[in-house]
């Protein structure tokens, strides 16, 4: 990345901002699909039960914390790679 000049970095920044939004939406959709899969098992009704609703929130929280932790380790690893 350090090969880019200031103007190129600016141009790249704009491209990445759009990408980041897309990534966020993709992450959110995956989260929804996974938590639905793991938490919703009862189709004798068309409303979420209290238990299912709680499971969904815990599942989402756990997934987000998992992603954050992976992100930290990932960043550390890349920093180490760069400096070596």
């Amino acid at each position, binding site marked *: 990345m350090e090969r880019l000049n200031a103007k190129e970095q600016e141009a790249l920044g704009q491209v990445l901002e759009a990408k980041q939004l897309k990534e966020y939406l993709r992450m959110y959709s995956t989260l929804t699909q996974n938590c639905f*899969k793991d938490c919703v098992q009862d189709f004798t009704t*068309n409303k*979420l039960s209290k238990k299912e609703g709680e499971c969904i*929130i815990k599942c*989402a929280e756990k997934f987000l914390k998992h992603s954050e932790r992976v992100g930290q380790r990932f960043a550390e690893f890349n920093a180490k790679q760069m400096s070596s």
Partner: protein
Amino acid sequence: MSFFGMGNNNQAVNPQNIAMAEQEVEMMSDIFNRIVRSCQEKCINNKYHEADLTKGESVCIDRCVAKYFEVNQKLSEHMQKRGEARGGM
């Protein structure tokens, strides 16, 4: 462009508008595909004894779609609250 358009420039094509509408359609189509996949796993017996949906499968699909939307809504609210609590996206 208003020079060529002569007054009907509100009929000019703004590529950004197209791109945004395109992204909206893409997102809808992504959600749709995920619901199809999710509810297939939940409701469709993969033995395929008959080509038609059984009564049980049909009812299950309707409820599954409704519940998927409810989960989507619940998580959308949760993410928003979470974002606000952290002061940002």
